[in-house]
């Protein structure tokens, strides 16, 4: 299945792009997709801590994904 992964802030700069298309196997978890993103963009290994979201909501790393889901990699936030 196809999953869109949005990356922000320092993660975006490390990936060299704000949006990454990932082809994952059916039944893949968020963790599986993150692993694929890191394989495609090795520089992202430098990112020590981040949260993850699915379709705009914070989601745990073991959450199962569905085709068309919008995943986001969220480095430590610094708004305000």
């Amino acid at each position: 299945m196809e999953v869109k992964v949005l990356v922000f802030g320092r993660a975006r700069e490390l990936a060299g792009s704000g949006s990454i298309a990932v082809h994952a196997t059916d039944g893949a978890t968020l963790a599986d997709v993150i692993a694929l993103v890191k394989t495609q963009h090795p520089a992202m290994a430098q990112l020590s801590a981040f949260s993850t979201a699915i379709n705009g909501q914070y989601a745990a790393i073991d959450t199962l994904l569905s085709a068309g889901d919008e995943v986001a990699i969220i480095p430590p936030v610094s708004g305000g």
Partner: protein
Amino acid sequence: MVNVLLSSEPLSIQACADWVMSPEAGGIDIFIGTVRNHTKGRAVVRLEFEAYDRMAISEMNKIAAEIMVRWPLHKVLIHHRTGILQVGEIPVIIAISAPHRDAAFTACRYAIDTLKQTVPIWKKEIFEDGEQWVTPTP
């Protein structure tokens, strides 16, 4: 009533104050963030704010909804800027009206503290001789 905005246009203190004012309210607390001209002794030239727009709006709405439940409030406003901000400009305004000042202060403080922990917005500091993504200080 809740008013949440993520905007690339300058934020207006007066407009925010006008929105939360109410004949039912006795006290208003407003927190305004401003871009400081230095960080740890280094001169800041400007800040660049980036947001995961739809999630930032949704998380700001969650904060507003939560504080409306936890404290007796009249109106809650949370506005956040995006894009390039110069020193002295305003990244965030949180304005809260309440029947009594205690709730307004407590809820406003909670809202900005929570925003800085949960809302997917990132800022990069641009110095004369470099730049860095700001990371939260514990």
